[in-house]
C-alpha cells in the first residue's frame, strides 16, 4: 500500500480543531472515534486508506468479537445478498458491467493499537447474519484475543483498499464526479441483544454508532470536496494533490464527494434563537441555472420542518447535485438521493420545468431524513418503517406547505429529451410504503396539532440515538392519549392488506308502508381496523355505525320511511391504508356509466391518433 504523506500523520496528531457538530449536545455518549486518512487515485478509481478506531463497549456484556460492515463488497460480484435481492425484485444492476465498473473493499491490515505485530486479520471471517448467504462479504467478524468489558474501550488500527464502482445505489463515480458513502470498514452497533451489523441490502442504510469522525481526504488538486462536518484544514501536497481535513462530532456516518466539475454556491439561513445554518451547494455545471431553485427548496424545506418538528440538527449542510444519469444501461443507475450527516444528495435533471417536483421533492425528502434517519438513526434493516416511513410520512405534510399546489405530473419522452408536464394531473407525494400509510392512518384519526406533537416528541426522544418502534409508540401514546394497540400491531405487520367493501344493499317496502333496508359490509383484507359505516336515506337522514371490522362481514338492518340512497364505509377517509377505496361506497343512483363513457371516449381518441401515427408508415 502506498504510504500516506507525512502531512496526514501530522494533521492527525495536531490538536483537534473545532468540529462541526449537532445543534445540541449528543444525546448518547460517543461510542466511536474514527481518525481516517484516505487518498483517492482518481484515474484508477481506487481509495487507499488507513485509520484508527476507538470503540467503547456500550452494553452490559463483554464482547470478544468486533463486526465491521464492508458495504462495497456488495458490488464485488453477482453473488452478494444485495445483488440477489435486486434480482428477486427483477432488477439486474450488474448486467453488462465490466470488472472496472464493480466495487470492492479489502482490509489490508487490522491490529489492536500497540500490538501491530499481532494481526487480527488472521481470524477475521465474513459472516451473513441476515440470510446465511455464504457468498456475501459485507460483514466481517473479527475475533479478539481478549474480550472488551462493558464500558471499556478498544482501539484498533486498520488499512484498506477500495475500488469505486460505477454508481450502485448511493455510491460511485461517473466521469470525474465521485460520491463516496459507506466507504470504509464501519463498525456495527453492539446492543445488549448482540451485534446489529447487517449485510448490505437494497433500500437500507448502514447502522452505525454515533461518535467523532476526523477524516483527511487526499484528492487531485484543485478538485472540490464536500463532506460531512466542517473543513478544518486544506493543505497542498505539492504533488498535484491536496488534503482536505473534515471533522464532525456526534454523528453516525461520514460521506464525501469530490469532482473538478462542481460549481459551488452558498447560502445562509438565519433563525432567531438558533445558530445560522450554512448551506453549501455543489452543482453540476449544467444545473447552474437551478442553483437558486435548489437552495430555495432546501431553505423552504428546513423552515417547514422546523415549524413542524424541531430545529434542524446541523449548523451546516452540504447539498450534492450528482451527475444525472440519462442512460442507466451504460452509466449505471446513478446516485440515488440520500441523506448523511450534514450532507445530502439530491436529484435533478437538465431542463426541468418549474412545475416538476424535482429537485424539490428529492431535496425536501432528504432534509426530512436528516431528522428521522440520520440524526435519529434507527436500524433500517430491523425496523425499515422507522427509518423510511416516518420520513416519508413527514414529507407528505411538508411538501404541500412548502410548495403549495405547485407541481404537476411530468413525464419524460424520447429518452429524456422532452419533459412534458401534464397540467391537469396534479403531482402527489406518494405515501409509497405501507408504513407511511399506517402512520397516515394514525394521523387521520387525530388532529393536525396532535400529529405534529407525535412527530416532534418522537424526534426529541430519538435524536442522537438509535430509536426503536417503542420510541415512536411511546411518543404517539403520550401525544394522543390513546393506547394505539392497533397501530402497534400494524407496525409489526405493515404489509397487512386493509380492504373494506359494501357488498349488498337491499330495500323493500313493508306492508305498513315503511322501508326495510339491509346493508351488508365486508372485510376483504387481512387487516382489521375499526371503521365507520354511514347509511344515508332518501329523506336526507343518515346513520353512522361503528364496526370493529373483526368479522368478515356485517349486516345492518333498518326500518325507515324511505330507502337507503348511499352507503359509505370510512366516510371521512381516515383509513389511508385502504387500498381500494372504490368499493367503499354505494349509491342508489350511481354515475358509473357516465364516468366510463367519458374516460373510454378519451382513450378512444388517443387510440385513434395512435392509429394515425402508425399508419403513416404504410
Amino acid at each position, binding site marked *: 500500500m502506498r504510504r500516506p504523506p507525512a502531512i496526514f500523520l501530522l494533521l492527525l496528531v495536531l490538536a483537534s480543531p473545532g468540529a462541526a457538530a449537532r445543534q445540541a449536545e449528543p444525546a448518547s455518549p460517543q461510542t466511536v472515534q474514527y481518525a481516517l486518512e484516505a487518498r483517492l487515485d482518481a484515474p484508477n478509481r481506487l481509495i487507499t486508506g488507513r485509520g484508527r478506531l476507538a470503540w467503547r463497549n456500550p452494553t452490559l456484556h463483554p464482547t470478544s468479537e468486533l463486526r465491521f460492515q464492508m458495504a462495497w463488497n456488495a458490488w464485488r460480484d453477482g453473488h452478494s445478498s444485495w445483488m440477489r435481492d435486486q434480482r428477486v425484485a427483477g432488477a439486474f444492476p450488474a448486467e453488462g458491467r465490466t470488472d472496472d465498473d464493480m466495487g470492492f473493499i479489502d482490509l489490508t491490515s487490522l491490529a489492536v493499537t500497540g500490538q501491530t505485530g499481532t494481526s487480527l486479520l488472521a481470524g477475521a471471517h465474513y459472516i451473513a447474519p441476515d440470510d446465511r448467504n455464504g457468498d456475501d462479504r459485507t460483514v466481517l467478524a473479527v475475533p479478539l484475543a481478549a474480550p472488551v468489558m462493558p464500558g471499556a474501550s478498544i482501539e484498533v488500527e486498520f488499512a484498506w483498499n477500495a475500488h469505486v464502482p460505477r454508481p450502485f445505489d448511493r455510491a460511485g463515480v*461517473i*466521469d*470525474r*464526479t465521485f460520491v463516496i458513502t459507506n466507504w470504509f470498514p464501519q463498525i456495527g452497533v453492539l446492543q445488549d441483544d448482540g451485534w446489529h451489523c447487517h449485510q448490505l441490502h437494497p433500500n437500507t442504510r448502514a447502522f452505525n454508532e454515533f461518535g467523532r469522525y476526523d477524516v483527511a481526504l487526499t484528492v487531485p488538486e484543485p478538485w472540490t470536496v464536500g463532506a460531512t462536518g466542517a473543513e478544518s484544514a486544506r493543505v497542498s501536497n505539492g504533488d498535484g494533490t491536496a488534503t482536505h481535513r473534515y471533522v464532525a462530532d456526534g454523528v453516525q456516518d461520514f460521506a464525501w464527494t469530490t469532482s473538478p*466539475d462542481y460549481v459551488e454556491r452558498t447560502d445562509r439561513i438565519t433563525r432567531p434563537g438558533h445558530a445560522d445554518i450554512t448551506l453549501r451547494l455543489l452543482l*453540476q455545471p*449544467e444545473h447552474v441555472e437551478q442553483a437558486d431553485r435548489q437552495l430555495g427548496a432546501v431553505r423552504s424545506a428546513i423552515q417547514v420542518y422546523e415549524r413542524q418538528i424541531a430545529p434542524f440538527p446541523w449548523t451546516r449542510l452540504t447539498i450534492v447535485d450528482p451527475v444525472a444519469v*440519462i*442512460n442507466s444501461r*451504460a*452509466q449505471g443507475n446513478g446516485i440515488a438521493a440520500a441523506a448523511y450527516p450534514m450532507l445530502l444528495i439530491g436529484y435533478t435533471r*437538465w*431542463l426541468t420545468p418549474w412545475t416538476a417536483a424535482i429537485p424539490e421533492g428529492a431535496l425536501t425528502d432528504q432534509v426530512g431524513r436528516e431528522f428521522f434517519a440520520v440524526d435519529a438513526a434507527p436500524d433500517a434493516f430491523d425496523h425499515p418503517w422507522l427509518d423510511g416511513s416516518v420520513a416519508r410520512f413527514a414529507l407528505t405534510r411538508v411538501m404541500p406547505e412548502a410548495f403549495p399546489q405547485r407541481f404537476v*405530473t411530468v*413525464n419524460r*419522452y*424520447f*429518452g*429524456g*429529451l422532452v419533459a*412534458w408536464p*401534464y*397540467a*391537469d*394531473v*396534479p403531482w*402527489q407525494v406518494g405515501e409509497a410504503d405501507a408504513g407511511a400509510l399506517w402512520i397516515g392512518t394514525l394521523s387521520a384519526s387525530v388532529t393536525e396539532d396532535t400529529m405534529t406533537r407525535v412527530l416532534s416528541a418522537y424526534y426529541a426522544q430519538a435524536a442522537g440515538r438509535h430509536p426503536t418502534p417503542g420510541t415512536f409508540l411511546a411518543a404517539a401514546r403520550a401525544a394522543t392519549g390513546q393506547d394505539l394497540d392497533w397501530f402497534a400491531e400494524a407496525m409489526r405487520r405493515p404489509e397487512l392488506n386493509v380492504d373494506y367493501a359494501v357488498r349488498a344493499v337491499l330495500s323493500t317496502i313493508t306492508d305498513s308502508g315503511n322501508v326495510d333496508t339491509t346493508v351488508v359490509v365486508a372485510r376483504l383484507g387481512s387487516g382489521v381496523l375499526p371503521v365507520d359505516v354511514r347509511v344515508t336515506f332518501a329523506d336526507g337522514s343518515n346513520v353512522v355505525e361503528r364496526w370493529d371490522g373483526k368479522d368478515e362481514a356485517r349486516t345492518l338492518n333498518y326500518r325507515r320511511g324511505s330507502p337507503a340512497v348511499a352507503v359509505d364505509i370510512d366516510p371521512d377517509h381516515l383509513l389511508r391504508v385502504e387500498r381500494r*377505496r*372504490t*368499493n367503499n*361506497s*354505494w*349509491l342508489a343512483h*350511481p*354515475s*358509473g356509466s*357516465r*364516468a*366510463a*363513457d*367519458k*374516460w*373510454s*371516449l*378519451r*382513450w*378512444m*381518441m*388517443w*387510440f*385513434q*391518433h395512435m*392509429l*394515425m*401515427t*402508425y*399508419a*403513416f*408508415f*404504410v
Partner: protein
Amino acid sequence: MARPRTAVLGAFAEGWRRALRAPLVTFSVLLLMWLIALPLAAGLRDQIAQQLGASRTADRITGGWDTAWAAEFATDAHGVASSFTHEVLGFGGTLATLSWLLDAQPMPRTMGTAVAAYLLIWLFLSGGVLDRLARARPVATSTFFATCGVFFFRFLRMAIVVGAIYWAVFRWLQPWLLGTVFDWGTRNLANEHQGLVLRGWLYGILVAILAFVNLIADMAKVRAVVEDRHSAVASLLAGWRFVRRRFWRCATLYLLNIVGIVVLARLWLQVAPSADEPDWRALLAGQAYLVARIWARLAFMASEVVFFQAELAHAQFAAAPEPVWPDSPSADGAGA
C-alpha cells in the same frame, strides 16, 4: 426536348387541394378508425364500469383526472385497459405515442392486433385512395372499392418487402443506434445535455432512414397506380429510381408535407382538451384534429401523386382503366 422540372411547391399545393376536394375519402377513413377503435373502447368502458360499480367514486372522476382512482384501476387493468393512464390526455398522448414508436416499446397484444388490422385495411384502401387522388375527380363507390381490390394484393406484396425493411430497421438498426451507439457515447458522460443532443442526432438518423424508406414506398405505390404496374418489386425499384434521380426535390416535397403535419400538431397543442374539459368539447377537438390529420395524410399522398404525374406522366393521368363492378352471372346470362 427536356421535360420542364416540376415545381415542388406547386405539387404540394395541388396535393393539398386535391385532398381537400375528396371529403368522402377523409370521412371514410375517419369512419374506419371509429370501427377499429370502438370495440376496444367498449372493452375498456366495460372494465371501468365494472370497477366503479355503484361507487361514489364515479362522481369524483367525472370532473377530471383522479390519480388515486387511476392507480387503483391500474392494479386490476388488463389488455387494452393497461394503456389507460394519464398519458392518453391531451398533447402528452401524442408525444408519448411517437416516443414509444421511436423507442420501439411494445404495446399490449390486443392493441397490437387492432393496429395491425387497421394497417391492413388502410393498405386495402390505399389503392382506391391513390387512384381517386390521381384522377382528381370523384369516382363511384363501386369503382373506388374495385380499385382497392385491384391494387390490394400488389400493395400487400409491396408491404411485405417494405415491412421487412422496417422490421430490420427496428430489429437491428434502432437497437444499434439507440443502444450500442448511445451507450458508447454516454458511458462516461457527465453532461446530460450532450447526451440528449447525441440522442437527438440518433433519432434524426433513424427518422431519416424511416422517411427515406417511406418515400420510396410511397412513390412505388404511386407508380403502381398511375402506371398500372403489377410487380411489387418492379414498382419498388421504379420508386427507388424515381427518388434517386430527383432526390432533393422529392426530399423537399416530403419535408414540406412533414412541416404541414407539424403545423397541425402545433395547433393541436393549442387546443388539445384538458382532463376536465366537457366531453362534447373534448370529442369535437379530438375529432377535428383527427380529420385534419387524415386530410394531411391524404394531402401527403396527393402531393406525391401530383409530383409524379407532372414528372413522368401528365396531370390527372392514370394508366389503368376505371374498373367496372362486374354484373352478376345471371345478368350476363340474360344478356342484360
